[in-house]
C-alpha cells in the first residue's frame, strides 16, 4: 500500500501548480495510471479521498484513466498493445521490445477556480 505516498506526491505537485496560477481551489483532477505502474486505481482513489480533506482540493473530483501497456518491436517496428502479461511482438513474436506506455503514473490535468481579474 504505497498509494498514500504517491498521493502525497500528487498533492505536492497539485498545490504547486495551483499556486503558480493563483488559484485557491482545485475542482477536478485526472490521473493516468499505467497497468504496470504498480499502483492500484481503487486504492489511489481511496487515498485521494482521505488526503484531500482540508486541502485546496477538498471538493475535487478524481478521474483515473487506465493506460494499457504499449510496446514497440525493435525488430519489425510494429506496435503492440498488451492486455496479458506475455511480452512479445504481436506481429513477429520478437521479445526485443521497447516500452512506450503503461508503466508510469501521471497527473495529466486538473481544473482550477481562478478569480476574475
Amino acid at each position: 500500500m504505497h498509494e498514500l505516498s504517491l498521493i502525497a506526491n500528487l498533492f505536492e505537485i497539485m498545490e504547486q501548480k495551483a499556486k503558480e496560477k493563483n488559484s485557491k481551489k482545485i475542482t477536478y483532477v485526472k490521473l493516468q495510471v499505467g497497468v504496470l505502474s504498480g499502483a492500484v486505481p481503487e486504492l489511489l482513489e481511496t487515498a485521494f479521498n482521505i488526503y484531500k480533506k482540508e486541502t485546496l482540493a477538498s471538493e475535487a473530483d478524481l478521474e483515473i484513466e487506465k493506460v494499457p501497456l504499449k510496446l514497440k518491436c525493435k525488430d519489425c517496428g510494429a506496435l503492440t498493445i498488451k492486455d496479458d502479461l506475455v511480452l512479445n511482438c504481436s506481429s513477429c513474436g520478437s521479445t526485443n521490445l521497447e516500452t512506450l506506455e503503461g508503466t508510469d503514473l501521471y497527473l495529466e490535468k486538473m481544473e482550477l477556480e481562478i478569480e476574475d481579474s
Partner: protein
Amino acid sequence: MKKKEVMVLEDLLGSNKKIAGDIRKKLSEKGILAINLLSSPGAGKTSLLEKLSEVLTPGYKMAVIEGDIETERDAERIRAKGIQAWQISTGGACHLDAKMVGKVFSEIPTDLDFLFIENVGNLVCPASFDLGESLRCVLLSIPEGDDKPKKYPKAFFTSDALIISKTDLLDKMPFNVNRAVQESLDVNPKLKAFKISSVDGTGIKEFVDYLVKNLNKLRRANA
C-alpha cells in the same frame, strides 16, 4: 470566479526518479555497483548477502544498506560478517525510496566495489521506487510457489536478474523451476535467471560472476 483547465503531465514519481538518477550518477562515477534486492519477506535476501560476504571478500569490498520497517536485526547480521551496514527503519513505510538512501549516502566509502541495498520485504510496493541502483534483482524462494511472477508482475518486469532461492528445498516442495523462469521471462524477456542456495552454495559462483561482470562493465563505461 471562472474555471480553468490546466494540462500538467507530471510524473508522480518524478522527484524520486530525479534523486535516484543523482545517486546512480555519483555511484557510477566512483565505480561502485549498486544492487537493489527485492523479494517478499523471508525469501532469503539477508542469507544471500551473508553468503556473498564470504565469497566476495577479501577480493572485493562490499557494504549493505538494510531496509526494514523496524529493528536493526538485518544490519546486525551483516555486521557480524565484518561488513559495513546501515539500517534504514522506514517506520511503517512498505518500501525504501531514493530520499532514504540519499540520507546515508555521505557515509558510503568511496573505495567500495559493491553496494547492496536490501529493500523492505514486499513484492509489491518496492518495485515502483528507483533507488539509484545499477542492477535490480528479484528473489523468489521455493516455499513461495512458482506462480508468483504473473501475480506480482511489476517486481519481475523492472528487474535485471531473477534469483530462484532456497533450491536446497526443491526435493521437499512442489515447485516447477521451469514454470517460474518461463513466467518471469514472459513478463520480462531480458531477465537473467539464477538458481541459488545460500545453504549449500548452489549457484553462488554464477551469481558472483554476473556481479563482477556488471561491475567491470560499469567501470569501463565510466573510465
